[in-house]
């Protein structure tokens, strides 16, 4: 179960990182960067 959860989180991180690089709106780039922080911690199982 935890492995599936972490896999989903890693996929989300990849998609959001792609969004960060393709997004033209700077405010949305910052949004993407902020969302990456808790997701990275979840992927590392740091709560």
């Amino acid at each position, binding site marked *: 179960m935890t492995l599936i959860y972490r896999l989903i989180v890693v996929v989300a991180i990849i998609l959001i990182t792609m969004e960060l690089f393709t997004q033209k709106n700077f405010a949305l780039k910052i949004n993407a*960067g902020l969302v990456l922080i808790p997701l990275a911690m979840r992927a590392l199982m740091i709560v």
Partner: protein
Amino acid sequence: MNELLKDRKNLLASVGVLAAAVAILSVVIPDALTMRQPDVIHKGPGVTEVRKLSDFFDGIAGTRGDTEVYVLDSGKPGASALILGGTHANEPSGYLSAVLFIENAVPAAGKLYVIPTANASAMTHTDYMEGTPRKFSIDTPTGPRSFRYGSRATSPADQWPDPDIYVHASSGQRLSGSETRNLNRAYPGRADGTFTERIAFAITSLIRKEKIDITIDLHEASPEYPVVNAIVAHNRAMKIASIALLNLEMDDIAIGVEPSPANLRGLSHRELGDATETLALLFESTNPAQGRLRGVTNEALIVQGKDDMYLAAHKLGRLFVPFGPEGEPLNKRVARHVSTTQAVFDAYASEMPDRHVVVGAMPSYKELLGNGIGPYLQASGSP
């Protein structure tokens, strides 16, 4: 995509935002990981052995649920007692009282077992949305000493996901799903159960294998909770709890005694008393940092226990305990737990004069109130 990547300005902005996120992570992750480093606890003059909880049930070996069991053996015949601190890691007076016993107590008869972090996993994180600090410090004569302030429940990194409804295994009692990670709803535990149930099973196994006569589970509750500044006793332990209450009242320590409810299952004072021969008791002191009515939640609230919101609530008659401008400082809450523990040991000795546990060299209630707990904690540094 390629066009955007060729846009030098856009690429630089993206790299900058990503670098900022990585920089924040490089600060946040090491800080969060400090919660996984156990606090330094010094072996006091009475400690004869330090064991692991997994010695009593190897199903938790190598997990964050395994923890130290400090043994203080007088070498003389007598009863054996177990003190549990840190069942709920956001109730620091229980944890610090256990540490005080480890660092100061010298048993004169019988054998004392102390587990300062009964749910060691709960010490590795804080509760979501509560805004509690990760650590608090106590001033000792040689400088401040830091302790973790954890969560009520096992870390979701160790047990996940929570069910919608938690069903207590041996009774079928149904509770909120998050209670599945609450050690004090998991007793007597199961060898093949969840992570939290296995910790509970390890503690139950210790009690059975070491033939523990008295088990004391140290807790705290918010001032608006009805069972506070109280002893909750299993029906077989009501007599010694009542004797202890009388002795404490004679020393001007106001305390109540509540019988363990027969229909509230999974708690230490019910299940350990039913499943083993031990006399099971649970103590509650008052922690304003846990309550719903609290104001600013910071280290000062944990240590000094002063809160204007609770002062106002007291004036409105909404609390179950007196709450004045002096608050409920940690010193007083630890003093209460230490004195109540000693009073229970004395009560047991009066009932079982040929088989008792005597714990000496502990500071008294008045000494802890007057001097604080700092002078009775050893200096920071390696054990």
